[in-house]
């Protein structure tokens, strides 16, 4: 009876379960960070990797697409970690942003969004080509997926790509976003990602809002608003360029 009541209470208040669960996970991660790495590896970096591992476990257990949130008890994670709360919190980080920093790096931030889309697309297209793809629609769709997992399917749908190719493009975008989360704190020092200026360039080049959001949180939370600012323009610019200009260039290269 006690057990059943307990489960019923938890399953009736999943968002609150998510709050306490994430609280425990973050506490444990900061504990590990202090004891095992003596603070060298940021607690939030460990927490994010922990979250990804749990997402893997959830995906294996349920065959779903929402990681741990597919387990009914943890369904609240889907709300807490969903786009609505994520964007709300990102906007809140802008409070306290230094306006002159934004203005100073505004132009280069905008340029890096365009460079980021073009470079990701080209790199993804090259990989598709080296794996044997020769038709412009498939190459462009996979290239677009290397931009973000939203640009991929939007481009694939617009160009009429095969659904297996669209699935690949989503997967490429997912790999990118997960990798940005994990790798950013590890390489930040080496690429000079330690000031608002380079954070804006980083957001523009990577473009995956979730990747950038988590990557900067694990590196230096003060940089979050600068990176997020440029990253939020990336998917839109990608959806603009990939199915139009970039696709035309690919088609010219392959069909003549």
């Amino acid at each position: 009876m006690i057990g059943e009541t307990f489960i019923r209470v938890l399953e009736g208040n999943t968002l609150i379960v998510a709050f306490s669960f994430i609280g425990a996970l973050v506490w444990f991660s900061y504990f590990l960070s202090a004891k095992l790495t003596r603070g060298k590896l940021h607690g939030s970096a460990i927490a994010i990797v922990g979250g990804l591992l749990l997402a893997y476990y959830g995906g294996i257990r349920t065959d779903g697409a929402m990681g741990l949130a597919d387990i009914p008890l943890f369904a609240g994670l889907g709300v807490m970690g969903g786009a609505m709360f994520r964007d709300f919190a990102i906007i809140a980080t802008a409070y306290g942003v230094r306006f002159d920093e934004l203005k100073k790096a505004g132009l280069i931030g905008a340029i890096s969004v365009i460079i980021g889309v073009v470079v990701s697309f080209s790199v993804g297209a090259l990989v598709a080509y080296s794996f044997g793809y020769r038709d412009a629609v498939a190459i462009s769709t996979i290239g677009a997926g290397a931009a973000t997992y939203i640009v991929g399917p939007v481009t694939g749908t617009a160009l009429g790509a095969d659904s297996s190719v669209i699935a690949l493009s989503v997967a490429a975008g997912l790999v990118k976003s997960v990798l940005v989360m994990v790798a950013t704190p590890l390489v930040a020092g080496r690429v000079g990602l330690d000031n608002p200026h380079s954070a804006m360039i980083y957001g523009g080049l990577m473009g995956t809002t979730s990747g950038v959001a988590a990557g900067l949180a694990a590196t230096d939370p003060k940089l979050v608003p600068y990176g997020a600012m440029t990253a939020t323009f990336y998917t839109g610019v990608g959806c603009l360029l990939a199915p139009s200009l970039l696709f035309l260039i690919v088609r010219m290269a392959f069909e003549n």
Partner: protein
Amino acid sequence: MVIYGVALLAFCMLTGIFFGDLLGQLIGVQANVGGVGLSMLLLIVLVNQKNPGFNISEPTEKGINFWNAMYVPIVVAMAAKQNVVEALSSGWLAISAGIAAVAAGFLLIPLIARISPGQHHDR
């Protein structure tokens, strides 16, 4: 009041997302173009204006800073709901494309930072 800060945030978000969506429709893409970025700009402009009838009191600030502080936990929850299984089981094409795109991005950060004006290393 704390709710004023939360409501101000909400107002900025709804306005920004609205214009981001309109912008997306105007340029003909099926995506929100910079809605969150526009919301952030709006918040920065609103809190920095020098209007005597509009000043951010301390409780109001708490309402904003609470969400600011919730950012990392929310991102951890976001990590826990990613489709990691699909990312890892999708085969080498998707994994290579993802890795290559990220590597190219990281390599470009110092290059672009160096050529861009406004950055002085000897500060």
